[in-house]
């Protein structure tokens, strides 16, 4: 009898894996994911066209403070604002900054003119410089040495250390855990939905094409249902594994072929090259900034290194399969109970709501991954696949993971039982609008 399930699984698997849409998705997925990882790095390397900014400084206090920076070049203009605007119209400048005499007393009189839409980076950069200058002047007016302030301004970056039960210390990287947890949670959610609805459509196809009665004269309805659910599950697993392998392969290849792209160059260094003279204070400030940046980048690296990827991938596979089996059975039951895809709506809602709820709650769980909400949602089988995957990168005690896993197994055994009772009646029922009361009768029927 079991070789019949194997035959069914094989058909369900092969018929999907050979589909063009599967092959396209399997190849496009990793390319998309890899480009999400690589593109930002490459994009920062591609410099925009340099913005030419003319400065008309009526106050004469600030123009020399504007040092050329990344993609922005400043040119002080001794002439009046009208001539400057004329030059801009002729195309000599992209923008003209006007600093009136009263700028210091009334900063709102500052103007940045441009012909095209104002470049946001330029505006932010100019604002930042002027802010610093105004602050410095004000501090001076109040009798405070700006250098003192600079010394006071200390970059703070806390290393979170978790002390494990066995007394070992481990540096925590909440940002990294958060990112990984979030991505895993979304992936589980998507996979369950994607492959769950494939089960639904498959069952519906068998019902509407009227092949189901031919098949159930050879195999038990339960075998047909399980064969389909397992076959589609294997398709999901295959896709996931190919994605993981290809994504790592693509990122690895890009990294190896263009190592200079991934060499870390902080933006602040560009600032340094633009200035001719560096006083010691400024140098110190740059150093602090670079150091801070480096440690952040280093921390992400450290964080990624501290994640136990085999455990992550294994638990992802387990919670994906568990959650998929739990929901897949329910999707199969829905497919068997209705006559067309349009009729699925009324039964879809109670199945999708817990999944959607888990997805929404994932945000809350991330901010407090060991709290009671996180704990309970990762125990309830309907939400645990998503929530547990969000929590695992933060580190979850093994006992909790095992308990959650056991409950999930119990959960899918129960939904499979429930679904098989609806399924065996539903697949042979045509042209009848089914209500919840009717489903309940099917479940109770001997």
């Amino acid at each position: 009898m079991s070789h019949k399930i194997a035959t069914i699984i094989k058909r369900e698997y092969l018929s999907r894996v050979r589909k063009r849409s599967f092959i396209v998705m399997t190849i496009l997925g990793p390319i998309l994911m890899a480009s999400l990882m690589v593109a930002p790095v490459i994009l920062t390397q591609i410099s925009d066209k340099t913005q030419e900014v003319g400065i008309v400084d009526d106050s004469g206090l600030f123009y020399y403070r504007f040092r050329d920076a990344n993609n922005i070049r400043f040119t002080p203009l001794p002439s009046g604002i009208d001539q400057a605007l004329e030059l801009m119209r002729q195309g000599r400048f992209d923008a003209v900054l006007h600093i009136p005499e009263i700028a210091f007393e009334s900063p709102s009189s500052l103007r940045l003119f441009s012909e095209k839409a104002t470049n946001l980076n330029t505006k932010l950069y100019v604002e930042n410089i002027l802010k610093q200058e105004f602050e410095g002047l004000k501090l001076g007016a109040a009798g405070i040495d700006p250098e003192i302030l600079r010394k006071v301004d200390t970059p703070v970056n806390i290393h979170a250390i978790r002390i494990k039960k066995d007394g070992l210390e481990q540096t925590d990287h909440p940002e990294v855990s958060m990112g990984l947890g979030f991505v895993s949670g979304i992936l589980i959610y998507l996979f369950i939905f994607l492959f769950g609805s494939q089960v639904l459509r498959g069952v519906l196809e068998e019902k509407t094409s009227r092949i189901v009665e031919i098949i159930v004269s050879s195999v038990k309805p339960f075998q047909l249902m399980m064969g389909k659910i397992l076959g589609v599950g294997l398709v999901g697993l295959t896709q996931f594994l190919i994605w993981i392998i290809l994504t790592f392969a693509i990122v690895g290849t890009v990294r190896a072929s263009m190592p200079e792209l991934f060499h870390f160059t902080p933006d602040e260094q560009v600032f340094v090259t633009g200035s001719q003279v560096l006083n010691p204070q400024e140098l110190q400030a740059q150093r602090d900034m670079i150091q801070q940046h480096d440690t952040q980048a280093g921390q992400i690296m450290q964080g990624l290194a501290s994640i136990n990827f085999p455990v992550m991938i294994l638990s992802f596979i387990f919670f994906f399969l568990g959650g998929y089996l739990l929901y897949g059975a329910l999707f199969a039951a829905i497919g068997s109970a209705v006559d067309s895809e349009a009729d699925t709506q009324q039964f879809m809602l109670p199945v999708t709501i817990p999944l959607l709820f888990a997805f929404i709650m994932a945000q809350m769980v991330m901010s407090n991954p060991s709290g009671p909400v996180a704990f309970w949602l990762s125990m309830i089988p309907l939400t645990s696949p998503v929530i547990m995957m969000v929590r695992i990168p933060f580190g979850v005690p093994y006992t909790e993971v095992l308990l959650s896993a056991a409950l999930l197994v119990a959960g899918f055994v129960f939904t499979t039982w429930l679904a098989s009772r609806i399924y065996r009646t539903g697949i042979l029922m045509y042209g009848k609008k089914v209500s919840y009361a009717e489903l309940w009768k099917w479940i109770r029927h001997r």
Partner: protein
Amino acid sequence: MDILFRAEHITKHYSGHCALDDVSITVPRQRIFGLLGPNGAGKTTLIRIINQIIAPDEGRLFLNNKALHPSDVKKIGYLPEERGLYKKMKVGEQAIYLARLKGISAGDARRQLRGWFEKFDLMPWWNKKVEELSKGMQQKVQFIITVLHKPDLLIFDEPFSGFDPINVNLLKKELLRLRQEGATIIFSTHNMGSVEELCDDIALINKSRKVLEGNIRDIRRQYAGQIYDVELESLDTPMENLLDSRYQVISTSRNNGLVQVRVKSRERTGSNELLRQLIDQVQVIGFNEHTPSMNEIFIKHVT
């Protein structure tokens, strides 16, 4: 009589209504057995029970004098009323798949399918998707799948509905040939013409109960001897006045100067008694004992 299949006291309730009420049938070996009844009588339910797709609430089933076992699906071939194929799957691949579910190895299935496909001129379609086939060709494929594993018992639920006339003839020919080769066939229908043409035995189910079962010739003979068609040269007085109260005149019509009268005998008096009463009074030209068609028997029982 050699019995292939028996169903005893089958009862099946669905929530709210009774689909089968204490139904028993006996199917002799190497016969074509017609399962008759109006829509909703419970034919399909009984057929699904025989195929072990659903379980009866009560009753027992025997194949070859042994209780029906789940592994017996191999010995049964079933063409349901609601039938179809995977539209996107290739014809040959699909036929092999369905044969494998019946327990045939892929190699055997391929070999036997080749024979059938050649016989039905389907070979060029082996690698086509089912949706590219005409309805008639799909029906041929479904028929092949039903009989491929050489089952002892073949069950066809409304096989002629949806078949075009050419395929109906083909199917009839194949049914007779399969019986010749030793198969036993149950088929359900409400097309009484095909019943008279093909069936050896029938069971009639109405409103969840079996109302009639047996050899078709016996049944028709049993219902004969009640109605007579009499042709007279002329008729001056009403026919009723010529006969005693055991007879009832059903209809009188005139045609080409002759009178045709259909008479029903209430007490199975036999043809001679009727003739005796008529001969002295009118000139009898024709006399015929009417054997009812299956259609008449059917209607008599279900209305």
